């Protein structure tokens, strides 16, 4: 199995624990991740200028197609942006015209229908690799761990871009991936709610309150960790949990793990290779509990 890996902007600079653990897990499972020189997906400036955003995505789609590989995105927003751009460019002639005007004038290139398969890293593990194979490769079952999953928004929505994959309102693939490690996936009330990360730059207070709501529920439920697959969600629940602990009377202590970090422990990968030093909320208690 071989894929072109799409890292985006946030992961390789600010959440390298996600990248490090994903690469370690892929290597352990025999999945080759190739870097083909992708740039920003366009998502961050979509609110400002959609034509520019789609132009960026279009150039990345071309790179994926040139490499003749399926594209695996670690960031669900990047993945969604690439899929959305391919969808819009496939059906809206006005957008194709605007994008190609921009690309031919400023980049010396043109979009000609390049449309490689784009999927999220977790979907690749779930659909292409398979949870049965993961179960067979687990060396260190995480039996006894109570895990809450946070599937996030762009992993499964909009469903129009993810036809045939999971459920847009009640996704379960991440839970099955967690259970493949031997851990228990615990249900809770606001599981499918947004972390608030995308409005951090607009109203920080609202974004933080959104993240806090989930941390409050999870504290009541009592879990060993929250497992997620998006760098913005990671920043909101991990970094901002630590920040909120300095601002609020109520202290939270919920370790936040990227799914490849959890899977990495179960596969018997050295924790040193899973980037736990980057996590803001300490995971030492959890590592102790599972005996690594």
């Amino acid at each position, binding site marked *: 199995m071989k894929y072109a890996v799409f890292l985006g902007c946030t992961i390789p600079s600010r959440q390298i624990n996600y990248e490090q653990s994903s690469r370690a897990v892929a290597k352990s499972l025999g999945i080759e991740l190739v870097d083909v020189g992708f740039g920003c997906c366009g998502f961050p400036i979509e609110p400002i200028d959609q034509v520019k955003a789609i132009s960026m995505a279009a150039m990345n789609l071309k790179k994926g197609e040139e490499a003749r590989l399926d594209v695996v995105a670690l960031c669900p927003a990047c993945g969604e942006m690439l899929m959305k751009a391919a969808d819009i460019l496939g059906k809206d002639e006005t*957008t194709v015209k605007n994008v190609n005007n921009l690309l031919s004038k400023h980049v010396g290139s043109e979009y000609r229908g390049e449309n490689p398969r784009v999927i999220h890293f977790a979907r690749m593990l779930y659909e292409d690799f398979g949870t049965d194979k993961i179960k067979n490769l687990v060396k260190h079952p995480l039996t006894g761990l109570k895990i809450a999953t946070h599937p996030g928004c762009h992993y499964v929505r909009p469903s129009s871009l993810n036809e045939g994959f999971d459920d847009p309102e009640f996704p379960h693939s991440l839970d099955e991936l967690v259970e493949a490690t031997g851990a228990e996936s615990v249900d809770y009330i606001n599981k499918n709610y947004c972390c608030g990360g995308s409005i951090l730059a607009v109203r920080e207070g609202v974004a933080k309150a959104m993240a806090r709501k989930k941390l409050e529920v999870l504290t009541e439920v009592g879990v060993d960790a929250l497992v997620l697959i998006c760098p913005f969600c990671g920043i909101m629940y991990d970094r901002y949990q630590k920040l909120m602990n300095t601002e609020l009377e109520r202290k939270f202590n919920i370790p936040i793990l990227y799914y490849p970090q959890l899977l990495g422990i179960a596969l018997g990968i050295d924790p040193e290779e899973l980037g736990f030093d980057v996590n803001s909320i300490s995971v030492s208690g959890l590592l102790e509990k599972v005996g690594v």
Partner: protein
Amino acid sequence: MKLSGAVVDISKVDTRFLRKLARELGSSNLSKCFQCGVCVASCPVRWIEAEFNPRRIMKLAKLGLKDLVLQNDFIWLCSMCFMCQERCPQDVRPPEVMTVLRNIAAEEGIAPPNLMKLVDMLSENGRVYPIDDFIEDERADKGLPEVVAKPDFIMKIAEAGK
């Protein structure tokens, strides 16, 4: 005027704004909105911030009341979670309408400065978060491969027309 309450002054209809919304793919189903409020009921931002009301934004936009739609930061509060899009019985696609409205606001120079800065970041670095020496060292320490620090095609696209 506050963006709450039921009464609006429809003498302020902006027909150019309405024509623009009708032309854009993202807002092509806006006219189908029948104000059921499923978007509000599905909204995780509304759960926290009662001022945020996507149904009302759809209504004001559909009526062509551009000034009322753009007069505060409400259009920027949608977190793009797409839950309302999944549930909307009329396929209005409120998050896509928000993107059209945001692009119109940005063209008029009234986007939040923090978001405008992202375009500058991309034209300077090709990345929203630059890969500086510190990060390059950290990546090397962890055995992570080098990444293109400044993807030039992104810089060129971000810079276009500036």
